[in-house]
């Protein structure tokens, strides 16, 4: 079971390294170490996803082979691409709003990474488990659109500007349905704490012929799950909601003027964001790190779940047309918002009946 502490991984490390007795400074060192591990795990995952897995997956959808030159199945593309991208010249556009232009990639990449702080990844890997975990993760995840607006506005480029304004509009459209659907889960758990949300999903819902079906909220309330998935795809800005980038319309949207490491950071931030979206979905609806087998391999299940979400976004990219921004606003406000309120009330009624 998950450790009874509010910051499982740092405490574990502190115990292992004998830092627990050395006050706040020691705690912070342990926390930094833990944060470094979590940060690099996620970075590694996006590193695999961005230059390689994404290409391979899309290639499968379109009957192609994609990267296969370096290493087995082209896996060597990952370090090669990393080196290539980092060693590109950085070109600063004329009239760029300098500090903002430089900070924007930091915000996009940083905010997504920050979201992972409260995600229980199984096998005891969870950095922090504050009481307001869910509220925190929603808050942090939406900081990224601030970064997009900064990037778009500071670039002094018209396509970027259009992309930035679209990013705002998109945020307006899905943010409320996303959060309202997300908190409908809290009605079941009675807590915003991530570990408790996961724990509440471990009970067996029903047994079918000896096969125990857990009470994952995706199974308990599939309607909310679908609604949440749709809003989540919009949150991470993937097809059919890749409107702020929309390559065939506004070139690359807010990131048109970025090159070199800044572009890497924006790109990285987007992939981190997809994984964060997958992580939130897994925690809220798919029982977090739960799965068959011993608890120690929970992390593997967690990885499987977030990659499943990643796969979904890539599938949509291959198959779903892009919406128009005004249509997204209408869908968000005239459809999803009402449905999410309806879902909230219905969930409340069901919980009231059961409890």
């Amino acid at each position, binding site marked *: 079971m998950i450790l009874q502490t509010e910051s499982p991984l740092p405490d574990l490390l502190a115990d292992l390294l004998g830092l627990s007795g050395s006050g706040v400074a020691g705690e912070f060192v342990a926390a930094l170490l833990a944060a470094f591990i979590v940060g690099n795990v996620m970075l590694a995952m996006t590193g695999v996803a961005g230059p390689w897995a994404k290409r391979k997956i*899309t290639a499968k*959808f*379109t*009957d*192609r082979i994609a990267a296969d030159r370096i290493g087995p199945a082209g896996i060597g593309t990952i370090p090669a691409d990393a080196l290539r991208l980092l060693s590109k010249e950085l070109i600063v556009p004329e009239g760029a709003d300098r500090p903002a232009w430089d900070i924007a990639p930091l915000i996009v990449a940083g905010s997504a990474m920050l979201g992972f702080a409260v995600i229980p990844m199984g096998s005891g890997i969870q950095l922090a488990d504050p009481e307001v975990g869910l509220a925190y993760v929603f808050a942090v995840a939406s900081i990224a659109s601030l970064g997009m607006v900064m990037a778009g506005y500071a670039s002094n480029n*018209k*396509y970027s*500007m*259009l992309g930035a304004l*679209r990013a705002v509009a998109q945020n307006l459209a899905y943010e409320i349905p996303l959060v309202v659907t997300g908190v409908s889960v809290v009605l079941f758990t009675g807590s915003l704490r991530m570990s408790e949300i996961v724990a509440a999903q471990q009970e067996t819902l029903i047994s079918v012929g000896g096969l125990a079906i857990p009470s994952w909220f995706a199974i308990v309330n599939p309607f909310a799950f679908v609604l949440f998935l749709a809003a989540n795809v919009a949150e991470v800005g993937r*097809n*059919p909601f*890749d409107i702020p980038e*929309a*390559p*065939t*319309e*506004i*070139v690359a949207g807010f990131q048109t003027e970025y090159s070199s490491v800044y572009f890497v950071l924006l790109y990285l931030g987007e992939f981190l964001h997809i994984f964060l979206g997958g992580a939130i979905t897994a925690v809220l609806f798919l029982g977090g790190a739960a799965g068959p087998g011993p608890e120690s391999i929970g992390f593997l299940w967690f990885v499987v779940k977030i990659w499943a979400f990643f796969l979904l976004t890539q599938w949509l*990219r*291959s*198959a*779903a*047309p*892009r*919406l*128009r*921004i*005004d*249509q997204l606003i209408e869908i968000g406000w005239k459809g999803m918002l009402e449905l999410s309120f309806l879902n909230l009330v219905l969930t409340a009624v069901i919980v009231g009946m059961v409890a």
Partner: protein
Amino acid sequence: MSLQEESETPEIESGETELEALLDDLIVDRDDHMNAPAFVIRPDTVQETLGRLKEEAGYDHLSLVTAEEYPDRFESIYHLKKFDDPTDEVSIVVPTDSENPVSESAEPVFRTADWHEREAYDLVGIEYDDHPDLRRILLPETWQGHPMGLDYDQDRPQMVPLRENANPLQEDQRAESDSDTMFVNIGPHHPATHGVLHLETTLDGEQVVDVEPDIGYLHRNEEQMAQNGTYRHQIMPYPDRWDYISAGLLNEWAYARAAEDLADIEVPEYAQIIRTMGAELCRIAAHMLAVGTFALDIYGDFTAIFMYAIRDREEVQNILEDLTGQRLMFNYFRLGGVVWDLPEPREEFFESIREFVDGLPDRLEEYHDLITGNEILQMRTVGTGILPEEVAKNYGATGPVARGSGIDYDIRRDDPYGYYDELDWEVPVEDGCDNFSRLLVRLREVEESAKIIEQCVDLLEDWPEDERNIQANVPRTLRPEDDKEIYRTVEGAKGELGVYIRSDGTEKPGRFKIRSPCFSNLQTLPEMSNGEYIPDMIAALGSLDIVLGEVDR
């Protein structure tokens, strides 16, 4: 071909007297072309003449404007047709003196004359009075001289500076509180412009207030190149380079049809069937790419549909490669037939075509599942990029663009050539006038083309071996007699593709003019996308399916 003409001659003549009566006070002279009666009028009565022909005689399709400089005069020729019956043609010849080449513009009568006259001004140097916007269109604005004029100096150095474009609505800020319009250049280097097209776009928020296509980036003056080639062999390779998106055989046919009629060459039936089959294969290949790139515009860069479309196009190209020896620049037609017979072993070749054609319905089903059946795509395309029927006619839109606007017009059926009138097929027409209709028309045309190919294969299979005549007897050097003029069109992949040739008694054409369907179709873009959102403008552009090689020539 000549047989048909003869049978139609009496009809034309009865029409001619009516036309003469209608234009009685305007006609100065007659200068008949091989395809149509031609009336010479004074340069200040262009609008009056064309207006009467359009309103009272029903000539509602200004197919082409040809301009040429002669030693003693400039001449603009307006080739008019009827959308109901494209064989009913009339040409209006407008000579102007060489000192002061000013002619009245036809733009108020036919919107399509706008670009055609700009091209005439640009390349030949005729000025059009009353034209709304007489600027260069294919060449840069700073170009000196008119390349197809007689006194043009090829060696003169040209300076083409890169300048900022102007926002046409900069001054249109009515009140203090009004927001500004934003001028954005979309293209020439942009993911959605299908080549090197430049759209000068003015936006108000996300909506397009004004868009003006700027073309000419791929201009090679194919007309002049053709004028420097001999009829027999040297011109045929050029048409492959107009619409280079695998529509090569369709383009070659445009030249072949005009030149064969000019030189009175009869094409053997067997060669006609091969031509028909090859042309329809090209049409499938071209439409596959059109559907694929349209999907790119709506779906984004990594859609599976594009790859699927390319995969199917590849199969067509394999067949075409077997037939012609080339994948893109076929150069397969010859005046009087085709260059060689079907590849041996014939059974294998027929088998590969049949395999493709038989598999096509399933594939089209897949496209319909993926594209037309998708609700998001329908949201995006139904009711956007509207091109009403009357507007489409006014702009001389043809091909799938016209048929998507409810205009039942297809040269293959209405002005038959090749073997089309012997075969059983239909012309798909949709009256939605929107992006979706144009997409649907293309997909259904693929179906019809497959039908035609199947029938051609049946015919070719049973063709007696000793009657496989692939080329008529054509003299080694073709020298059509002096001053014969002909304008002939075929149904290309994008619409009515025509060639006007004036012979001058030598083995090279005196004037060679191309009627590019994309050129006229692209002109409708502002009508479709003004007031729409940016994504819909991109979709409308995709639905036009332009190829810049043909627009710019």
